[in-house]
């Protein structure tokens, strides 16, 4: 009797998982299929073609936008990780009041509406005479990335034992090398997931980029946004499918590669 209920239980659980996965990936599958549609129409199938994939690589607009997107995501995440990790360590050691204050302000970019963050940054840049362009996009992305880094690193910091750090210092290590040899490896998972999350958020953002970009710079998101109304070039579907497959393959490789036992 117990085995039967267990079996039913597992079946329902699996079923639920599958439904959710279908829900999450249905639009992605749709886009992938559309990337092979010879018609530009979103709903009518015109025949199979790979021409959008080839057109993709010859379009300098799309390639430039892709380059910008990746570069900004990478740089902003990296810088956010550096500033954010340092900040997290500092905040962790603070007394309650300054800590709550800083954490509160940290939450603001995450909780504020995209459009308000984007516009407020634009207003600030204009007010200080900073011309809009690549650097303003970068600054904006760093700004909304730092909170994610801090929130990823903090829990790991709390979990690390301060005494190990102090022990290393007692044994003669400088504070810098004690940090890198003792504390850093422990918080590394938090740092890495912070980086990953920041990268993802940067990749997907368009409202904030839209308001802070100035002339001539496009990321993939702003490029797509400018095409939404007129009709998106199917090359965009092709590009998105490629990015998606790349990340998926990465995932599968690193997860199913043989792991070394610690």
């Amino acid at each position, binding site marked *: 009797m117990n085995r039967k209920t267990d079996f039913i239980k597992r079946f329902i659980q699996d079923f639920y998982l599958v439904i959710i996965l279908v829900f999450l990936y249905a639009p992605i599958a749709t886009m992938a299929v559309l990337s092979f549609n010879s018609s*530009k*129409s979103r709903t009518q199938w015109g025949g199979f073609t790979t021409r959008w994939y080839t057109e993709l690589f010859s379009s300098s*607009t799309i390639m430039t936008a892709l380059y910008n997107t*990746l570069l900004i995501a990478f740089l902003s995440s990296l810088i956010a990780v550096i500033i954010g990790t340092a900040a997290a360590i500092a905040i962790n050691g603070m007394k309650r009041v300054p800590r709550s204050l800083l954490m509160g302000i940290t939450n603001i970019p995450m909780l504020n509406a995209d459009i308000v963050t984007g516009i407020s940054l634009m207003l600030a840049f*204009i007010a200080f005479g900073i011309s809009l362009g690549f650097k303003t996009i970068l600054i904006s992305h760093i700004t909304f990335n730092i909170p994610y880094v801090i929130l990823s690193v903090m829990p790991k910091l709390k979990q690390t034992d301060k005494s190990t750090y102090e022990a290393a210092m007692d044994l003669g290590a400088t504070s810098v090398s004690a940090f890198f040899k003792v504390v850093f490896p422990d918080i590394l998972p938090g740092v890495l*997931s912070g980086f990953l999350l920041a990268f993802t958020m940067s990749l997907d953002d368009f409202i904030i980029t839209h308001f802070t970009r100035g*002339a001539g710079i*496009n990321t993939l998101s702003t490029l797509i946004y400018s095409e939404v109304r007129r009709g998106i070039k199917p090359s965009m579907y092709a590009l998105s499918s490629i990015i998606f497959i790349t990340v998926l393959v*990465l995932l599968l490789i690193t997860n199913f590669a043989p792991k070394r036992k610690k």
Partner: protein
Amino acid sequence: MKKTLSKIMAVGSLCVLTLSLLSGCGKSAPKSGSAGEVYVYNWGEYIDESVIQEFEKETGIKVVYDMFETNEEMYPVIEAGGVKYDAVCPSDYMIQKMIENNLLAEINFDNVPNVKEIDPRYQEMSKSFDPENKYSVPYCWGTVGILYNTSMVDPKDVPTKWSDLWDVKFKDNILMQDSVRDAFMVALKSLGYSSNTTNEEEIKEAKELLIKQKPLVQAYVIDQVRDKMIGGEAAVGVIYSGEMLYIQNEVKDLGLDYSLEYVIPEEGTNLWLDSWVIPANAPNKENAEKWIDFLCRPDIAKKNFDYITYPTPNKGAFDLLDPELQNNKAVFPVEDSLKNSEVYKYLGDEVDSLYNEAWKEVKSN
């Protein structure tokens, strides 16, 4: 987990760098052209990309190309002056607003000899917003009309007037334009008023009419009308004539068992013009004039027309077209069907606010 993540990060960063390098190869050289630069601000999907590259090759001027989706979005950018563009392509009424707010520079037509290729008819039309044709050169023009699906509309119900869009038979099958001026134009014209009216009572009446229509409307869209109509989502829609050629070709290519026909309503419609202008603070005015001149060359104008499919005001280009295209009434309508049609005027900030507030009420209901 730490090892997994580290591995992912390593491989991931490698991929990112590789992709960036690859895409870096694909893009054109970021250095300035030998003859300087020109900053162009145009509608999305409103040019054949190879035209940009041809211009760069022929003149050595580097083109920094940027896009906007609505006039209302473009205006504050030019007004604020945070970004300086050299050549911009706004619509009729917006050009008038920019002229009245001293945002435009007079074009030196000595540098734009190809302006003679523009059919004088459109120069005349331009006078309604650019009284002496000093500030603008027409790029594309067209009308707004009703698009209907022959399989979803009974032959006896074929729409011929704007007021047909209030027919209960089309409930949930009507696509309206998500733009304040265009939506009000439809309502005002159906009431027999001018689409440029500043009369509060008339605006109010039009607003009430639009609110009455809302339950029948499937969606307010802009250029998605095209995709949705091709997909057979709705029976009737309000659309720009520029989309017609594309639609006709798509319907043929897809072998659909219905066709989509274009009608210019009896009450008259909106005649629109998108023209090139040069902002007063343009840093590269002469390059902008070269750009505009280049676009007026008949072969270039025809190339753009082939890609954008929006009607061209360029007589030289028109003459290069197939007779079949020249006689395509949807793309190039006859004079007759254009009586009662008007070009949008800029109505001033106060009246604009009236329209905007009224539109908000329509959307909110």
